[in-house]
């Protein structure tokens, strides 16, 4: 079994579109959550009246792919796939991966749940409203796997390449499966992460109808939390065997040591603590680690009443008396919830915490819900360098994925 390390990071997120910007915002607690853009397509006829009960989300502001992608690629891809291409380009460059592994021995695993929402809504909206013809590139733009294909094409990678769609756990499942592939020796390296661009009016209205979006802003684990905040973005990790990283002198950010998956087998939206707890336990067992080694939990932490209460209960089930002493924070307090991408953004935040010796703050919260009995990081990041951390993803439908990571 190979040891697997992270040797490259890249991102396009609401809190930064480079590793350096993301790291700076993460540890300064700078939130990417802001007001909604105007919606010229709003059926109300008023771009400033999208008929939503919430007014904030986390957007990648001023995203412009034109300096970086050819016009042909831009027209043949949705914003989501563009996040994948550009974040992976950063990560591959950061790691210096290309040329040091055979192209057929590199895997690509992306997490994207909703595909090309912008293209889909634009085309179907025109089809059903004015019987417009559907653009011939719509199929390509809407494929959830387009990002994976474009990463492969850009880098000439011919190894196993696939996309995982497990809603809010997609990015974590993608990284976890890539980790297993490298560890088992199926490949020697992998490009893995998540990307999503779901901030379309139809998607926002769908979430609005579910009544789980905060009318103000997500405040994970807060006593007065009132829902999630939607976001978008992409994050990519380069994984490879420790041996190859050492041999070529690659930068090593952290080691991935365990991956746990589970299903609640319970309800399509209501989470169940036993399911989340099982995924955390399996990640620790996989890492051959004991609960008392965990020094930081990057929580799924959506900010909804149900998620945060159930996740806290799961943490108590796994860690027992230690649960209230382990520092916890949710990256979504800064980045919003970017669905299929969010697990990758959070894995990156966890890796940076281990690498930089700082635990990121759980922003926007002044009083933690005492019922949860957790050590939520408020105010300032903590200058602590844990040896082991976990990153939780708990998706709608009860699909849970947890990564265990060690400082290197």
């Amino acid at each position, binding site marked *: 079994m190979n040891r697997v390390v992270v040797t490259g990071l890249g991102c396009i997120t609401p809190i930064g579109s480079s590793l350096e910007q993301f790291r700076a915002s993460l540890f300064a607690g700078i939130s990417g959550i802001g007001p909604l853009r105007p919606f010229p397509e709003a059926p109300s006829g008023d771009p400033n009246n999208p008929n939503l009960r919430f007014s904030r989300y986390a957007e990648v502001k001023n995203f412009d792919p*034109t300096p970086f992608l050819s*016009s*042909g690629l*831009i*027209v*043949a891809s949705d914003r989501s796939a563009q996040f994948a291409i550009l974040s992976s380009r950063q990560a591959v460059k950061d790691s210096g991966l290309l040329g040091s592994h055979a192209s057929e021995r590199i895997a690509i695993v992306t997490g994207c749940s909703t595909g090309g929402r912008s293209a889909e809504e634009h085309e179907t909206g025109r089809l059903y409203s004015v019987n417009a*013809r559907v*653009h*011939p*590139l719509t199929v*390509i733009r809407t494929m959830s796997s387009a990002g994976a294909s474009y990463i492969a094409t850009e880098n000439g990678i011919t190894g196993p390449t696939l996309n995982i769609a497990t809603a809010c756990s997609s990015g974590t499942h993608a990284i976890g499966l890539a980790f297993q592939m490298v560890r088992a020796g199926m490949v020697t390296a992998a490009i893995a992460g998540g990307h999503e661009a779901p901030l379309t009016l139809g998607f926002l209205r769908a979430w609005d109808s579910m009544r789980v979006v905060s009318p103000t802003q997500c405040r994970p684990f807060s006593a007065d939390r009132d829902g999630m905040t939607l976001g978008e973005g992409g994050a990519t990790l380069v994984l490879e065997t420790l041996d190859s990283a050492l041999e070529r002198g690659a930068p090593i950010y952290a080691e991935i040591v365990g991956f746990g998956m589970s299903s609640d087998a319970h309800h399509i939206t209501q989470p169940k603590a036993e399911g989340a707890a099982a995924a955390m336990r399996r990640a620790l067992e996989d890492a051959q680690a004991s609960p008392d080694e965990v020094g930081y939990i990057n929580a799924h932490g959506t900010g909804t009443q149900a998620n945060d209460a159930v996740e806290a209960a799961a943490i108590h089930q796994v860690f027992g008396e230690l649960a209230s002493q382990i520092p916890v924070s949710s990256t979504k307090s800064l980045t919003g919830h970017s669905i299929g991408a969010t697990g990758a953004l959070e894995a990156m935040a966890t890796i940076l915490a281990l690498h930089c010796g700082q635990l990121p703050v759980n922003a926007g919260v002044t009083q933690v819900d005492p019922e949860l009995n957790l050590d939520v990081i408020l105010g300032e990041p903590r200058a602590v360098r844990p040896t082991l951390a976990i990153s939780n993803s708990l998706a709608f439908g009860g699909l849970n994925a947890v990564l265990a990571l060690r400082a290197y």
Partner: protein
Amino acid sequence: MTQTQWNSREEIAERCIALVTRCKTPPLEGVTLNSSFDDLGLDSLDKINLSFEVEDVFSIQIPDDAINHLRAVRDIVDGVQSLLEQRNQ
């Protein structure tokens, strides 16, 4: 829907060249009737895209097999002219 009347081959050619020019960003330069798609750097997706726009502008339907045989701007103009003539007969 009102259909625009295209009175001459020159008009058709001028419009087709304009559409090809706009296929890329920034726009292509020096597109002529004799420009080949290979020389212009247009791939199969560009051709499908272009055909979609040509169909919209001229209110015609280009048969699938015709798209596969497009090699140069002149082929588009010939095809459009032929389809417009068929429609007007």
